[in-house]
C-alpha cells in the first residue's frame, strides 16, 4: 500500500530504491556468500582450505541433525550462561556497594581497573592451579572477566544516578534504604545493562577459548579445534558460524530484554 503510493509519487526508481533499502542487511549477507562462492569457483583459495558455502552449510545442517553440533552448541551456551549468572550475582551487589560509597570506590578502583586491563586469558593457568582441569575452571575464568565488566558499569550507574530523583524520594519520606531500592538501583539499571551485554559477550569469548585449550571433550571451541586438526574444513566453518550465531543471538536477546525492562533508558 505504502510502496504503491511511494512509487506513484516518486517514480518507480525511487520505489525500487526504498525496497532495496529495506533489504540492505540481507543484501550484505548475500554479497558475502557470493564473494565466498566466487573465491571457490575461481580457485583463488585452495578448495581444501575453503569449502564452498553449500558444503559448509551442509555440515552445519548435518551437525544439527545428528545432534553433535547441537550438543556442543548447548554445552557452550550452558557454560556461558553459568559464567554470566555467577558474574551478575557477584557484580551487581558489588557494583552497587562501590557506587554508593566514594571512599570504598577510591580504594578499590585501581585494583579493579588493573585486573580489567589484564587479558583475562592470561589468568587461565592461575585458575587451573586453583580449580583444576575440570569444567568449572572455564566457567570461573569467564565469570571473572564478566564480573569486572559488570561491576564497573553498575558502579558508574549508581554514582551517576540523578540527584534530583533521590532528593525527591527523600523529601517524600523515603528512608536511605528505600531511596537505594526504589530510585538508585533503577537509575543505574540502563548502565548495568550495558555492562551485562558486554559481560555476556566476554564470557562467550573466554568459554570458547577455554574449550579449545583446557582439556575439553565438548563445546564449540573444542569442535572448531578438532575439525581443524583432522582437516574437516566444512565442519570447522559450520562451527565458527554456529559460534557467530550464538554471539549475535545473545546480543539480540539482551537488547530485547533491555528494551522491555529499561524502557526509559536514554529518555
Amino acid at each position: 500500500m505504502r510502496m504503491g503510493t511511494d512509487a506513484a509519487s516518486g517514480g518507480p526508481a525511487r520505489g525500487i530504491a526504498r525496497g532495496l533499502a529495506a533489504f540492505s542487511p540481507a543484501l550484505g549477507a548475500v554479497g558475502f556468500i557470493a564473494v565466498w562462492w566466487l573465491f571457490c569457483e575461481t580457485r583463488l583459495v585452495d578448495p581444501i582450505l575453503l569449502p564452498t558455502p553449500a558444503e559448509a552449510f551442509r555440515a552445519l545442517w548435518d551437525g544439527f541433525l545428528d545432534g553433535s553440533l547441537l550438543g556442543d552448541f548447548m554445552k557452550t551456551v550452558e557454560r556461558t550462561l553459568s559464567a554470566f549468572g555467577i558474574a551478575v550475582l557477584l557484580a551487581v551487589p558489588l557494583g552497587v556497594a562501590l557506587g554508593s560509597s566514594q571512599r570504598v570506590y577510591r580504594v578499590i578502583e585501581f585494583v579493579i581497573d588493573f585486573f580489567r586491563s589484564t587479558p583475562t586469558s592470561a589468568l587461565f593457568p592461575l585458575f587451573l592451579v586453583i580449580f583444576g582441569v575440570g569444567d568449572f575452571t572455564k566457567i570461573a575464568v569467564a565469570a571473572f572477566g564478566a564480573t569486572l565488566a559488570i561491576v564497573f558499569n553498575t558502579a558508574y550507574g549508581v554514582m551517576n544516578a540523578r540527584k534530583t530523583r533521590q532528593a525527591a524520594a527523600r523529601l517524600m519520606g523515603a528512608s536511605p534504604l528505600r531511596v537505594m531500592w526504589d530510585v538508585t538501583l533503577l537509575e543505574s539499571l540502563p548502565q548495568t545493562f550495558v555492562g551485562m551485554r558486554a559481560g555476556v559477550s566476554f564470557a562467550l569469548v573466554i568459554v570458547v577459548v577455554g574449550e579449545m585449550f583446557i582439556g575439553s571433550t565438548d563445546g564449540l571451541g573444542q569442535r572448531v579445534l578438532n575439525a581443524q586438526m583432522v582437516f574437516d574444513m566444512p565442519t570447522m566453518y559450520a562451527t565458527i558460524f554456529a559460534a557467530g550465531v550464538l554471539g549475535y543471538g545473545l546480543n539480540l536477546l539482551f537488547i530485547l530484554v533491555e528494551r522491555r525492562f529499561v524502557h526509559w533508558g536514554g529518555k
Partner: protein
Amino acid sequence: MNAAVRLPEASATHITVRGLNKEFGGAPLYEDFSLDLPRGRIISVFGPNGCGKSTLINMISGLVPMDRGEVRFDGKTLRDSKLGYVFQNYRDALFPWKRAIDNIRYPLELAGRRPAEIETRVAALVASFEIGFDLHRYPYELSGGQQQLVSIMRALAPEPEVLFLDEPFSALDYEMTLFMREKLQEIFAATGLTMVLVSHDLEEAVYLSDEILLLTRRPTRLAERVAFAAPRPRTAATLATDEFVRVKAHCLEVFQNEVRRKAAP
C-alpha cells in the same frame, strides 16, 4: 475545581526560620538569616542571580543542609512535618520507570497508606485536576506541561502542610505557563495551602503571590517584603490594574537597586 476566594481568616505564622547560616564556596551566602512566613498564603521569592533563592527554599524544606539555624513548621521540626516539593526540572524529578499514576501513588505508598485509601486519594486528586490526558502513560510519553502537572499532583498527594515550588514553570512554553498559573491558583483556592514559590519572572511572582520576598545580593538578606492584595481569582485583567503595575514597578526598582549596588563597587 471551585475557584472562589477562600483565604484562611487569620494568617498566623506558619514557617519560622531562625539564625540560618550557610556558606557557599568559602563565602557566606546566608548569615544569621531569620524569616516568618504566614499560613495559607502564596509567597514568592525573587532576587538577583546567585543570591540563593532556590538554596533558601531547599534549606527550609531540608533538601540542602544548612550550616547553622533552625526551621519550624507550626513549631514542629522538619521530621514531624509533611512537605511537598515541585522541582524545576520535572524530567529529572519524576520516576520514568513508573507510570504517571504510579508516580502520584508513590508518596502515599511511602507513607504506608492502605491500597484502598491510596485509590480514594488518587481518584479525588485526578477528579479535581480535570486531567485531559492518560495517566497510565510513562512520564517520557507526556508533554512538559503534563509532566509538571503530574509532579504537582505527586507533591499534593500526601496532603502536605506546605508546598514548595522551585521555578516550576520556567522550562515550559508561554502558553503552558499561563495554563499552569491558573491551575496553581485553582489549587490554592481549593486547599488554602501555604505555598513558597521561587520565580525568576517578576510578573509571575507578583501575579501569583500575596507577598513577594525581595532578596539582596550575597550575603543574602531580605531587601523588602512587598504585599500584593489583589482579590482572587486573578485574571489577565489583574495584570492591567493600577495596583499590579505599581507593585511590580516597585519590586523592579528594589531589584535593580540591588543589582546596581554590586556593580558599582
